[in-house]
């Protein structure tokens, strides 16, 4: 009897122990389930490749550990990203949960209803100290739809700046940093091919790198974007600007300059094989990377040159948004909230990122320290450029839904002139005619 009762007690204790052990082993999971409601979710995140994107990659495991969300992070090159995402969004596919809202496509992607409005996420799922107001209002504007709702959270405000990698050659010629288009020509004439350094190169995405010159000469892309989308590419001012810009590339560019992408341009500046460029701040600031650049100590920076009609630096904004087809919108918002937070912006700045969209990052001492290269304060130049663009309002051309069509015509026109196939007037007249044909095909009444 005693033995039987003892055996029964022993069995009961064993069951109790197992139950406690089981409950204990489940408990963390229960705790995790409460703290990590999206545990086990896989998020497909895609942005084009760039400086911030590279800095973000090693930080993603922290987000994964904190949320239990697995992130598949894809960063193809800029044109590949845009083509792939444009197709994915247009089919309302579920392949992407978080996507970059590319500036030139923002009007088209948001206007077509391909992104999810984020207002309810901001109101209901975001603490107030995350601070939307800290993101520059000018950066939020292109991410706002006609319905007044916000469709993307900006992580980048990039401005076109002028850079010289071999300013020592300019000084040796007795000249200063060029502030106007005429001065730039004089400087290039003096330094071209000196010490095996070509005068000028820029990214062959001319739909982005040419407009600062187009507007500086008094031209414009459209008659009055976004209300009147009649292209203005064959105006005398536009022809003069194209002629000037093509002259810089043709007569002062390295061999094969019209095949240069942004990366090639930056490499050429960092190695000193090319002296001048006007490209985005996030790229020119790489000249200051002592680990990979030979020209840190000979570099100089300034605003894009002023033309007969003024100074018109290009400004671009990139943001993170949630495609409408995503099946993981709530988890996607968690990623966006994290990736565009004050903390991540500051950490990116500390690691050398030069184009954050948050005021707190832009005004931080770390930013000023990191973005001062060879004595030049790139941060101050960037803020001046954003101010000029905000006052002028000329960047509206870039966010109209049909801009990608005209963007391509600008690329072709500059290539035609630089390669000597057509003169500026012929090439810009062709660009005008083909832009009109493309816009009509898109159903735009001109």
């Amino acid at each position: 009897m005693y033995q039987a009762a003892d055996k029964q007690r022993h069995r009961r204790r064993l069951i109790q122990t197992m139950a406690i052990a089981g409950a204990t082993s489940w408990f963390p999971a229960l705790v995790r389930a409460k703290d990590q409601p999206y545990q086990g979710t896989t998020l497909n995140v895609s942005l084009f490749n760039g400086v911030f994107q590279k800095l973000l990659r090693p930080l993603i495991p922290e987000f994964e550990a904190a949320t239990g969300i697995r992130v598949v992070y894809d960063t193809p090159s800029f044109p590949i990203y845009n083509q792939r995402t444009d197709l994915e969004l247009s089919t309302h596919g579920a392949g992407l949960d978080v996507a970059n809202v590319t500036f030139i496509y923002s009007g088209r992607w948001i206007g077509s209803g391909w992104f999810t409005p984020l207002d309810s996420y901001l109101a209901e799922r975001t603490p107030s100290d995350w601070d939307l107001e800290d993101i520059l209002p000018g950066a939020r504007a292109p991410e706002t739809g006609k319905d007044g709702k916000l469709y993307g959270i900006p992580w980048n405000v990039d401005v076109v700046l002028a850079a010289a990698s071999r300013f020592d050659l300019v000084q040796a010629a007795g000249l200063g940093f060029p502030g106007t288009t005429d001065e730039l020509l004089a400087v290039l004439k003096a330094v071209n091919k000196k010490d095996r350094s070509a005068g000028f190169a820029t990214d062959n995405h001319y739909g982005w790198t040419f407009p600062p010159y187009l507007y500086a000469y008094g031209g414009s892309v459209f008659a009055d974007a976004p209300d009147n989308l009649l292209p203005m590419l064959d105006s005398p001012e536009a022809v003069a600007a194209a002629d000037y810009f093509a002259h810089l590339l043709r007569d002062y560019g390295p061999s094969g300059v019209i095949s240069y992408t942004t990366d090639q341009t930056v490499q050429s500046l960092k190695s000193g094989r090319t002296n001048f460029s006007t490209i985005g701040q996030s790229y020119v600031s790489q000249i200051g990377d002592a680990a990979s650049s030979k020209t840190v100590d000979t570099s100089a920076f300034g605003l894009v040159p002023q033309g007969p009609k003024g100074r018109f630096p290009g400004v671009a904004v990139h943001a993170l948004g949630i495609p409408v087809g995503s099946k993981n919108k709530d988890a996607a918002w968690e990623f966006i909230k994290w990736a565009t937070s004050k903390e991540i912006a500051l950490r990116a700045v500390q690691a050398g990122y030069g184009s954050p969209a948050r005021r707190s990052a832009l005004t931080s001492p770390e930013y000023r320290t990191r973005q001062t290269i060879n004595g030049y304060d790139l941060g101050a130049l960037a803020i001046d450029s954003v101010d000029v663009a905000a006052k002028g309002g000329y960047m509206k051309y870039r966010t109209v839904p049909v801009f990608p069509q005209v963007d391509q015509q600008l690329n072709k026109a500059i290539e035609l002139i630089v390669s000597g196939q057509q003169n500026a007037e012929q090439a810009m007249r062709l660009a005008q005619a083909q832009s009109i044909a493309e816009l009509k095909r898109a159903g735009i009444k001109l």
Partner: protein
Amino acid sequence: MTILPWEASRKRAFIIGLAPALLVLGAITLLPTLALIVVSFTPLSLTDPINTFHFNNPLGNYRQLWADTRFLNSVSVQLKLSLSSVALQLVVGLGVALLLNARQAILSAVRAVFLIPMVLPPIVVALIWKIMYTPEVSPLHRMLENVGLPVESLITNPDMALWAISFAETWQWFPFTMLMVLAALQMMPDDPLEAARIDGANRWQIFKYIVFPYIRPALVIAGLFRLIDSFKAFPLIYVLTNGGPGTVTEVTNFYGFIQAFNFSYWGYASAIAVLMLAGAFLLSWLISRWGGHHDDE
């Protein structure tokens, strides 16, 4: 009386045997083609798919194409690229095959080396040639500069860009012709060659009157395959020139790609694809007729 039922049952057996393959072929080839043709009669744009998928003006895209100078230019570029690269591939492939047509162990190894470009992924080939054609990093340009013959970038020179693409395309695909010709050469009987030699024919005469007629069907087939495949030239153009400078290297499928994937004009791009398909059919019909005609002689 007994033959007909046998023929009928034979036919039925063929049909039953072929049916699964035909069904699969229909599902993966004919249905998408049919969809392509249907879409080509609409102005479908993916930015507004509901309002643009209609048949109000079914021939609108084709009418626009007829007046689209950039499309017409792309057809001309396509023809130049296809004809030049296929001609070069046939000449180089034939020449290399003749050189390598012997039963020696070392030649077998050399043949395998020549096959490498053909088995590389097209994007890798494009990157190799991007390096070769970029003066700043190109060993080719550096070598020419060192011997006092500096050459400007070929892919940004409007007179050379298409030739540069054609050359790279030839490098990648001449091994295909080489393989076809080698196979034909190795099947060739020795008797007529020996007879010709005994009759005093020189090498050129042997090639012209015996070898070439024998391998001509293989060359025609290789040419046909390569010509049709050349319409798909895309990675080289995408990576090396992006269709430029201007539109000098913009072939028809690249133009169709821009219309579909940059601008979302799927109706218009489908019309371009339909015309390309028709062109490929026409070409293969013409060449097969030409090849067949000569075979019969």
